[in-house]
Structures are given as C-alpha cells and as structure tokens.
C-alpha cells in the first residue's frame, strides 16, 4: 500500500460545524484518501517552528520523516507579514525609507541605500562624491554585521558557541558606530533621496579605522576555529549542495549563488556608487554546499573590510564636501535661506507640502545586499507617492530552494541547511 501525506489538513479550520474543536489529522492517508488513525508506522510529520530558535525567526517547517530522513519539507511563511508594499503606496518616497529599515533588519543601512538609489535612478539624480563614499561605507558595514550574525547563529546551530561571542563582540563595535552616525542601532533611516540624513560626526572615521585595523584578527581566529575543524567540516561539506544550474534556476542570489560557482555580484556586474573604482575580489565557491557558503561569507567580510579602508582613504580627501545634491526638487534648502529668500521658501514649501515628485515611469534597481540581490521596483505616475513599490526580497527567493535542499537529508541537517540560507523573516514576509 502506498502512503500519502494528508496535506489538505492544512486548510482545516480549528472548529467543526457543531462548534467543537476539530481534530486536526496528523498522520497519513491511504490511496483513497481515507485517514489512518495511527501516526503512521513508516512516516511521521514533524512540525518545526514557527517558535523555534533554530528557524531564525518565525519560519515554520512541516517535515515528513522516514526515520531520520526528510522525505518532504513544506515551509509556511507569512507570520511576520506587515504589508510594507501596501503601506508604501500611501507614503511619500522619503517616508518609505523607515519601512526599509524593518525588512532586512540585520542590515538596515544597506536597505536604505538601495531605496534611495532606486528613486534617484528614476529622477536622474547624480550624487555628490562624499555621499557615494559614505553610502559605500554604510553598505559594507551592513554586510559585515549581517554576516557576523549569520556566522554566530550558524555556529550555535551546529554546536559551536565561542564564535558567536566573538562575532557579536565585533558586531557591537559596528553598531556603536552606526548609532553615533544615525542615532539608532536598528531603525537607522540613513538615506534621503539625493543624499543622507546626516553627515558622520566629528572623529567618527577614527572609530571605523580602529575597527578595520583589528577586525581581520577576529576573522583569522574564526578561520582557525572553523575552516579546518573536523566537526564543522563533517556537518557542512556535501550538505545542502546545489549545482550552478540549480542555483540559477532557483533565482538564488548573493552568497548562495556564488557558493554554487556562479560569478555574479551586482557590485561588479551592475556597478552602483562607483563600486567599479574599488579594488576588491568576489569569492566564488565550487560545490555549493554549506561549507562553501561559509567560505564565501567569511571571505566577503575580509573584502568588505578592504573596501571600508579604501573608502576611508577617499573620505579623508573629501573633508567638508557636501553630502546632499543641490537640487531643490529633492533636498530642502538651508533654513537660513528659506527664511530670507523667496525662491528657497517656495521650494521648501512645495517639498514639505507636496513631497518629492519623480517623473512618471518605472525603474528596477538591484543592489548587492548581504543576503543577496535586493531589488526595488518602483512605478511612479508623477505624483509624490508610488503606484507600486516592490521589494525583490533575496531571503524570500533563497528560502524557496529550502525544500529541494532538505529532501533526502537528515533532520539535523535541516537546521544546518536553513542556517546556511541566511534568512531574515522580516524580509521574507515583508
């Protein structure tokens, strides 16, 4: 007799017609769909999440097990759905920036940069040099903190506690810098269309210099701890592997795509913020397994550190340069001028009352975020609020490959594979 899981049980409501709580089938059916009372001798359904520390947020996986082997994995998402895209349609462009903080909340500054770049592309705004350098710094700081969270939590998932402490200690240093720049640790809202919310405070560069000079040492320690560690290798090599063709077919992006051997990095192939003028390498894996994803992310942190050092050198040459464009359509004139100059006052009034108005049209702009390619697709009808604001969420698209990676592996590997995708549920569910 062949057995089939009762997937339809997902649609049962909690209460039957008489008002009594319905018994939810947890078991197997035979070919005719008849429900078998026992839990099934051969296969078992296990519900993992949504409140499980190793699912990295409110992800729920329903796993069909045969012994310890996963036969089927059905992810359920949406527990953190906030309707950001709908909300964005009722907000002006600069008011959308706080929403982007809350999608991938492990790299808020990089999200802010992506949205501002998309609106600027729609309006044809050319940024100032200092703004570009500061935005690069924001993006690379975000990449480092996001990868550090990934490293620490994945280590914990696989039983290594020490690197978690190291990585969170380093992460804290960046968070302190982030806080002194933007005033917030998480809800940074760093960018504005045409520039930045604020310039860096006095002496801030010295803090980042100190970080970039000592951070490689931590990476070396992590490298010593993990890269040739027999337990780590045993848990990660050959697990959850995807070939290059599969990775492309699943539309994966970021470290997930590159670990499978596809050399595509938005910073190199569709440069924005003058990334083509920075000297850095893009690590590419070979086998597409968890170990390669680890190697890729570890190397990306080293490369981000390199970019940060170069950006700091450029910043020292741009002392006192403006961070905002001098475009009265998008940037408020200085208060002193708005109070004394008629024209400046009109621009001030129009911007405050009506908001920024990009021309009618649409744009898709992708940026290389820590999780993968974050894309913003904006459709404008010439008013101050977008017709459609779409986030291409890298976590969501990468997570869609999870069932394929899990099926046939052991239950304990599901935790490792899920960790290697590096999801953040705020972005998956939006």
């Amino acid at each position: 007799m062949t057995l089939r899981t009762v997937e339809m049980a997902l649609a049962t409501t909690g209460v039957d017609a008489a008002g009594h709580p319905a018994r939810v089938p947890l078991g197997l059916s035979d070919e005719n769909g008849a429900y078998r009372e026992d839990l099934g001798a051969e296969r078992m359904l296990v519900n993992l999440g949504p409140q499980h520390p190793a699912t990295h947020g409110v992800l729920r996986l329903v796993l069909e097990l045969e012994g310890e082997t996963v036969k089927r994995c059905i992810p359920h998402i949406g527990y953190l759905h906030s309707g950001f895209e709908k909300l964005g349609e009722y907000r002006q462009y600069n008011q959308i920036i706080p929403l982007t903080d809350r999608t991938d909340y492990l790299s808020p500054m990089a999200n802010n940069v992506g949205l501002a770049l998309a609106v600027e592309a729609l309006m044809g705004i050319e940024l100032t040099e200092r703004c570009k350098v500061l935005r690069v710094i924001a993006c690379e700081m975000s990449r480092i903190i996001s990868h550090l969270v990934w490293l620490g939590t994945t280590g914990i998932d696989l039983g290594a506690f020490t690197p978690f402490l190291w990585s969170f200690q380093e992460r804290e240093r960046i968070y302190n810098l982030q806080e002194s720049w933007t005033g917030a640790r998480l809800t940074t809202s760093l960018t504005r269309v045409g520039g930045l919310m604020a310039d860096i405070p006095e002496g801030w560069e010295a803090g980042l210099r100190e970080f970039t000079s000592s951070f490689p040492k931590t990476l070396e320690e992590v490298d010593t701890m993990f890269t040739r560690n027999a337990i780590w290798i045993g848990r990660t090599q050959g697990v959850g592997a995807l070939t290059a063709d599969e990775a492309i077919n699943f539309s994966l992006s970021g470290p997930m795509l590159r670990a499978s051997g596809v050399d595509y990095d938005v910073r190199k192939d569709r440069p924005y913020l003058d990334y083509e003028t920075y000297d850095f390498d893009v690590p590419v894996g070979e086998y597409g397994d968890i170990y390669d994803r680890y190697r890729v992310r570890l190397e990306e942190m080293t490369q981000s550190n390199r970019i940060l050092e170069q950006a700091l050198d450029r910043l020292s040459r741009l002392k006192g340069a403006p961070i905002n464009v001098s475009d009265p359509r998008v940037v408020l004139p200085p208060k002193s001028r708005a109070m004394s100059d008629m024209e400046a006052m009109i621009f001030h009034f129009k911007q405050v009352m009506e908001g920024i108005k990009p021309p009618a049209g649409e744009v898709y702009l992708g940026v290389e975020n820590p999780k993968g390619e974050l894309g913003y697709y904006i459709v404008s009808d010439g008013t101050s609020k977008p017709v459609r604001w779409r986030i291409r969420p890298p976590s969501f698209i990468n997570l869609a490959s999870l069932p394929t990676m899990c099926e046939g592996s052991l239950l304990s590997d599901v935790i490792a594979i899920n960790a290697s995708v590096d999801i953040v549920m705020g972005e998956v569910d939006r």
Partner: protein
Amino acid sequence: MSSISPSVAALRSQFGAAIERHLVSSAQTIVYVSRDRLHDVLAWLKDTPGQDFNYLTDVTAVDYRDPERPLEVVYQLRSLGRRADLRIKVALDKSAPLEVRTVYDLWRGADWLEREVFDMFGVSFTGHPDLRRILMWETYAEGYPLRKDFPLRGHFSRAEQTRQALAANPEAHYSLEELSMAEAYGELPQDMQERLARGERGFLK
C-alpha cells in the same frame, strides 16, 4: 536615454504581432507581450543563443490607480552571461478572469514568486503545481491586499479581522497542541469549552 534592448527587434521578427509594444523607462526596456504567447516568448528568450535570459530576477504585478487600466504581470529577466536585463509585461483586463500560464516549468524560482502574486493580486497561474496563498493564511477571506480596490486597513472591521485571524489559527493546523486540546475537550472547564466553541483563542475581548 533611449537605449532600447536589441532583444526587442529579435522578438518582433520572431513573434510579430504577439509583441504588442515596447517602451524605455529609466534606460530599461519594457516589452508588452500578448497573454497567449507569453510562455512561448519567455521560453524563447531563455533558450535562444544570443538571448540567454537564463535568470528570472523577479515576478510581480502592478495594479494602477486608474481602475480602467489593466493589471500588469511583470517578469524581470536577466542574462547572467551577457549581463543584460529585460522586463516583460503582460496586461490583464480586469473584467475577465486574471489568468496567466505559469513559468514554473522554465524557472523553479517562479514557484514562490507566482504564489505571492496570486496571494496579493489574485492572478492565477495555470499549470502551477502548488498555487496556494503564501504570505496570508490559507483561509484568508478579505481578498487580495495589493489590489488598488483593497483599502489600506482592509475590507472588514478590526474586530472581524481579529476574529477571523484567530479562527484561522494557522499554527494549529497539524500541531500536537491542537490535537491534545481536542482530545481533552471534555475535561476543560465550562467557560473554556464555550470560548473554544465560539472559535476564540488567546486574549480576545
């Protein structure tokens, strides 16, 4: 800024009238394709040497503020080898059923992306093997949130939304807690039985 993708000319000579129109916005080419030939066009773009749009960046939809204007399903394509992008759109008249053929057979990445468009806009993708709601729960009854005729705060009152959300109780499906609760139903205190019978959960007032 009028850098039209060379793929447009190739598409026109291959598919003729099925290519409805094209335009350029922010130096990005957009091609409108008739719904009947959409799958053929995407398959051709994916597999033809010289086009090689092997990467499906995104699938989404746009509902315009003008209620007369058709809803558009948007496919953002990329050729990883040639580093080229192309946006394909199909316009769906809102008076007819919103249906498009799935591209799941071309790109597995379309699986969740199409489910999201179905969930948020109500476009059904024919041939999709698992077209269920993805972000909203499966018994969600208010409609399609990203449609322009869907109000920001939803169709139902706050109380009704809460009641439905709790009755849907998506986490309880399959869960052992729900099972044990059902078996222990007769032993529960009277007021809790009544609350459960009304479909209430948690701290509902």
